[in-house]
């Protein structure tokens, strides 16, 4: 693994779609560290990522853009700093159907604050199609408060075009 090279970090709460998003972009099958969920995560899905997900995009000249997904549960947050070292930017995925997506967003923006300041970030709101339409505004309010130039897109993390749009948006703010 080339942790020191170009990489994009995907983060967000459990079940937000990080693994699915990396799978959409990766040139090779995603290497995951999924295990059977045993805690409150079980309410959301059977498997969950406990260390990280890894995929990559190989560019024409043989260079790699590495894609790392952080584990969702915040008890694994000791991994976050390690994964961010040398990263190009952050893609934060937030589940619109969670009880409080704005609070999730605030939490992750706070946790990755210095990384975002150094690089850039974009937020993807997933499952917006089956949630209340006010979620976007609530997340936008959090960003306005932070004063960051962070684009927010409503996406389907399983849809390749949607995930590419997130990367394009991230590239725009870097």
């Amino acid at each position, binding site marked *: 693994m080339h942790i020191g090279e170009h990489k994009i970090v995907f983060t967000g709460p459990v079940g937000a779609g990080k693994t699915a998003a990396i799978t959409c972009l990766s040139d090779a099958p995603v290497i995951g560290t999924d295990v059977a969920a045993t805690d409150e995560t079980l309410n959301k899905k059977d498997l969950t990522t406990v260390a990280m997900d890894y995929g990559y995009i190989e560019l024409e000249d043989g260079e790699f853009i590495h894609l790392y997904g952080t584990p969702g549960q915040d008890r694994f947050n000791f991994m976050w700093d390690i994964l961010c070292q040398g990263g190009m930017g952050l893609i934060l995925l937030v589940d619109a159907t969670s009880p409080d997506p704005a609070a999730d967003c605030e939490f992750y923006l706070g946790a990755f604050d210095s990384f975002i300041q150094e690089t850039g970030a974009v937020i993807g709101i997933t499952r917006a199609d089956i949630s209340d339409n006010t979620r976007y505004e609530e997340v936008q309010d959090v960003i306005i408060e932070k*004063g960051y130039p962070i*684009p927010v897109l409503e996406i389907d993390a399983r849809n390749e075009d949607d995930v*590419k749009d997130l990367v394009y948006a991230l590239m725009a703010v870097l």
Partner: protein
Amino acid sequence: MRSISLSLLGLTKQDHAILAVAIKLIDVPGTSLTILPEGVLSGEVILINNDTDAGADYLKKKNPDQTKIFLSEKFMPTPQGSRLLERPVRIHDLVNAFNISCEQFKSSTKKNIKVGSHANISTSPVNTNNTPLLLHEFITACQKNGLIKLECPPYSPLYINGISRSVATRASLPEIHIIAREKDTLPQISPLSAVEEYEQASSNGVNIYPINTIIWHTAMVGANGKILPEHSHDTPVKLKSMPRFPREYMRKHPEYLKMSALLTRKSMTVNQLQQATQLDIKIITDFYNLVYALGLSAIDEKANTAEIYGNNKSKKSGLLSRLAKKLSTTG
């Protein structure tokens, strides 16, 4: 230089004052306006005070070779090829009417005018459409909670409600594109007297659009580099938040995200954005017009408009462009 003759009929002192300013702002290259003496009504363009008897009588005269611009207290039907500007007359509207007239006569043969005092005006290049004017009207309606009727025959009028931030019209979105794209016909704008009038106009199964939808569609047409009235390429603005770009818009204009990011960080003018991004000034102006019309940007008078920006290409820009290329070729 094509000299176009302008007659005046029954203008008030205030009309003359507005005319004096407007005539200096005419913006059609290769043309000049020649004001004919009082009482000489044979100009190629004539500016008429319709609120006088002589002006009202002139409305009935048929002269297909003459462009008539009527100034009137009330909205009224006008002959084809003529224009109505309702009082209080705005300088911008009069300038637009003159610009359109000058464009029309620019390529035609000069009429034989034997008398005239001269007021030749040199002009700078422009080839604008209705987009900036429409956006300006939407902004004004929203800022003043106004009710406005905007007509551009043969299309259905737009009834703009700044209170509910909505637009009622039978015109389809593609027709609104055409109205915005129009260069030769200036929309007639008249205030509605009350909410009831708006409600009456919008009660018969017309389309009701959120005003932001109409702003997006109008801005999408583009203004050909022309900035909003009362703004300049040196007006500094800052974004209050990142715009919620519709997905198709973002794909069409990925550079809008870049400009949004820059303007969220600090206040910049159109000219400074151009220095920083090296984008076409028309793209930047369209972006400026759009975000201002949506209420997403605010003028920041304290900003340093003298600061010069270089095209700051970072080391990673090569990597990012290779990544963009890769993403565009897969899937």
